[in-house]
């Protein structure tokens, strides 16, 4: 039980990678706050699964791009559990299009949820963690934030932004015992990638040395490591979980 008695907040935890991380943390003994923005039923199902591991779990609706909602969520979790040990900034959306066809609105939406959401949660939780002199912040970036991807200039910009943000905050908060790292997933089987055509999926898979797409659990394993004491001397890093796609 690597996370026994710890409290974790996972944003965008109703589905996909967020869901897998929440369940892996619960299995490791952590109480989990399951943040979601629209999929209430799916979020509730994650809670039902999590409590089977004998931990506390609850759903908390909040728009990650709204600082006040985020601050209220943090306060609520703190009052209830007494500490916040782990934050996973996972909430993310895509609005793919070629730059020439991308609307300003689609650019802003992706930046607001992916990048600003990460800023909002990290800022609000850092007040708590600085006082605790301890904490683990894990930001879910993407390999496209490193190598770019045609049709995803908004998403890639947001994810690259998250990487720069991670490194800066790691430098700011290191002296307070707070570790800040990023995970850059490659091609992972989730609802987000289910929309891609078979041809594109095959193309992706061919570029992966391990010759298979990743599972949400592959990412959750890395998150568990970065949330646990085993990673106490690691901060400001980006860990690619991509079957070797980027190296």
């Amino acid at each position, binding site marked *: 039980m690597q996370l026994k008695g710890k409290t974790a907040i996972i944003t965008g935890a109703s589905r996909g990678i967020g869901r897998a991380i929440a369940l892996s943390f619960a299995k490791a003994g952590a109480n989990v706050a399951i943040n979601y923005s629209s999929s209430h039923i799916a979020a509730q199902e994650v809670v039902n699964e999590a409590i089977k591991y004998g931990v506390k779990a609850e759903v908390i609706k909040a728009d990650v791009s709204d600082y006040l909602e985020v601050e209220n969520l943090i306060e609520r979790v703190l009052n209830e559990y007494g500490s916040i040990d782990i934050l996973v900034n996972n909430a993310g959306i895509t609005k793919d299009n070629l730059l020439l066809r991308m609307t300003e609105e689609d650019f802003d939406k992706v930046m607001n949820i992916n990048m600003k959401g990460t800023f909002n949660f990290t800022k609000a939780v850092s*007040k708590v963690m*600085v006082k605790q002199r301890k904490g683990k912040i894990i930001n879910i970036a993407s390999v496209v934030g490193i190598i770019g991807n045609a049709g995803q200039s908004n998403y890639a910009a947001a994810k690259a932004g998250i990487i720069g943000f991670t490194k800066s905050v790691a430098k*700011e*908060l290191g*002296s*307070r015992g707070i570790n800040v790292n990023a995970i850059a997933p490659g091609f992972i089987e989730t609802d987000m990638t289910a929309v891609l055509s078979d041809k594109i999926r095959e193309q992706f898979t061919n570029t992966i040395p391990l010759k298979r797409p990743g599972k949400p659990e592959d990412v959750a394993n890395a998150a568990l490591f970065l949330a646990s004491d085993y990673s106490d001397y690691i901060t400001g890093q980006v860990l690619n979980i991509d079957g070797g796609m980027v190296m």
Partner: protein
Amino acid sequence: MIFEKVQEKIAEQLGIDTDDITMESSFIEDLGADSLDIVELLMALEEEFDIEIPDEEAEKLVTVGDVVDYIKNNQ
């Protein structure tokens, strides 16, 4: 009275002796604070005295005396 409370908060934040903290002490030069220490300290003082210290004012607070005066004038 304000000075004693401020002194106490600084000692707690920086892990130093209250005797080493005078009205003339500069946070960075004399007390060894870094920028994050100062932000944390000001947040703690805002809570303690129920005041708000805007960023542009915070920049001007160099010594313990600056902070004590600011609190006196804004409480």
